[in-house]
């Protein structure tokens, strides 16, 4: 399973957000590795997904706090995307809980989409619209 790698274009320029993006990538890659390990403990994937869910929830909370404080004009759209991703992760968590996998393809695809598309569009825009952010 391909892991997610930090790329310079992911950087928003906001120290808190970039710091947490890097931490998140670490958690996601751990989860992807566990999901790809067919000989491993299936329960571990669920546990790691729970951790990723909590970390991403916290990360979104921080991003939304910053956007709200800086009156970001696309806050509502950004927030909606956050909620969709959290819903997707929760669906994946329940699928793992119910069937024990395989989920790595869905999980990887969804997170890659988020890190790629989200960073290129929303996060990049946020950075551009908030000089000094």
């Amino acid at each position, binding site marked *: 399973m391909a892991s997610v790698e930090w790329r310079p274009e992911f950087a928003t320029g906001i120290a808190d957000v970039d710091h947490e993006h890097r931490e998140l990538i670490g958690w996601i890659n751990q989860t992807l590795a566990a999901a790809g390990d067919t000989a491993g403990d299936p329960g571990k994937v669920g*546990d790691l997904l*729970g951790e990723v869910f909590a970390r991403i*929830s916290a990360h*979104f*909370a921080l991003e939304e706090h910053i956007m709200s404080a800086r009156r970001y004009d696309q806050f509502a759209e950004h927030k909606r995307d956050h909620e969709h991703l959290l819903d997707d992760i929760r669906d994946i968590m329940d699928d793992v809980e119910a069937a024990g996998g395989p989920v790595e393809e869905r999980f990887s695809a969804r997170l890659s989409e988020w890190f790629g598309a989200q960073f290129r569009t929303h996060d990049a825009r946020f950075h551009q619209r908030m000089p000094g952010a």
Partner: protein
Amino acid sequence: MNWLKRPLRAIFDRVESMLDAVFGAQHNPLAQLGALGWYLFWLITASGIYLFVFFDTGVTQAYESIESISRDQWWAGGIMRSIHRYASDALVLVAFVHLLREFALDRMRGVRWFAWITGLLLVGFIYVCGITGYWMVWDQLAQYVALTTSRWLDVIPIFAEPISRNFLSNTELSGRFFTLMVYIHIAAPLLMLLFMWVHIQRYNHARVNPTRPLMIATTVAFVALSLLMPALSQAPANLDQLAASVGLDWFYIPLYPLVDTLGGVTLWGLVIGIFVVFAALPWVPPLRRAQPAVVHLDNCNGCARCFADCPFSAITMQPRSDGSGFTEEAVVDPDLCVSCGICVGACPTATPFRRATALVPGIELPESSIADLRERVEKLCAGGPGGPPRILAFRCAHGAAVESVPGADVAVIDVPCTGMVPPSFLDLIVTRRMAAGVLLAGCRESECHQRLGVRWTEARVAAERDPYLRDRVPRDRVAVSWASPAQKSVRARAIRNFATALAGLDPALPRSATGSHAPWRDAARRLARPLRWAIQLLVAVGIGTLIVRYSDSPAITLRGADEAIVTLSFSHAGRLKEECRKLTPEEIARLEPNMRRPRDCPRARWPVYVELELNGKLVYRGEHLPAGIWDDGPSSLFERFAVPAGAQHLTARLRDSERDSGFDFSNTATVELVPGQSLVVGFRASDGFSFR
């Protein structure tokens, strides 16, 4: 104090339940007394500004201008004047019920001491505003207020001469003193507004506006009251002829008759004593406080959700102290934290799905950890022989009890506030089928003990406030029930009906909600709309009648029908104890250079001794010391005597020198007094005694 709080709380509980049924929990006036106080303040301010435009501040014109406002433009100025008076009376009523209610609900101890003490000070401000306001009308009531206030203040030994001397007679009435009252009446509300702001400083999202329907209804009620029972002045003030009785505003001056019966000093003692007793209540006994919330920086990224949700402003966001990549961290002020756990419910890391690391959220209560909460949930939902419980209830410590009812197996977890339960716990329990449904059983909807617990819980479940309960959680399996400890039947009915509703649901749990985010709630028992309106009207009429009834009556008797008043008053400096003496050159040389002077003039004066005889009978005698710390000021006296009307022979004598017998001044007069007449026996060194 529980012997007093318990019955009071029971009374408030009952009345509040009735008003909930009549007004609805959202518009219950008893649950928004503080906000109502704010609104009344704005009503009083707005009407006061209007009145001030037309008010003539001259002492002789004040009465006429108020009469003109009240009668010539009854359709505007008259209404404004009535609103000004009645809203001021209502403010006293609201402030005292607010005070009593906070006491009954035990909401003045712990961190709430600050609002309690500032609230007590606000009551003082309300009285200063009201009393100076009555003064300005300059009618009989104003005269009574002026004379009584002056006499009450005169017992405080800080004035060079009695304030009462400003009100000896119509001709001696000081316009400047009257103007001072006008300034105080404007300055006091401005200071009061500052204190109102301070009063709510320690509350996050403090409510300063009642609900819109309540505001509209209050305004309409005051306008109607103003048209039906307009506030009018009493007869104009006349310091030379005292009225036999005066109607009092019992909201503002209930203590004034005690100035006559108890005396000014005793009344000050009483007022200060009452204030001290009330001010001590937050610490009688001190509140046993649970350990405050703690922040775990390893799991805090500074998202500020706890900061936004804390009802008591106990959390601040401060620069990061752990050298991590984040810029801010939450910091809890333990002195302000009430350990309600609402911050924990807001923390995005307080999710039970975390299992790869220890379940330690960014912020939590040491005595009620989130890991412990998950453990309790898992233990209860593991179930007994019959399997998992149908309903898992999170019960607020300040709400009604939660008990199993026939057909509804309920497992209960006690929490300090329902706002402590993170929505992800509801997600876990419902979507993983750990129980058929979850019940958030809190305290009274219209009055959350932790201020914002009910509001935030509702908003999170409705996905209107972070952290959202996810859409995927079917809301028909998540119930809210708001009931005070006395509302046991409300709680029991909610549990019974929720169990019935759960039994009727499709066992195949939908993966995502379709439609409303509103949780299940038991339909409130509400009266039919016409009946509600009728009772609302009755409540308004009742309060309006109470305000009108006691805003200028019952009257009190000021003097007997055949009595007149004799006032003995002067402000006179006794003679110097020592004459000026020329200093010798040697004496001058011994003085410090900057203190050298040709003459030495000791400033101390002799006290003034005075006697008054009425028809040959001594009615007053007294020695009056000079004012000032060097005993160099005037000696003053203001003393009133009720005397029978008719012919009176008066003799006044005064000694102001070193002699220890005999008098330096004396005068007699025979006067014919009519009932109510005010005769002033005055004294000036140049003219001797006068009888006017």
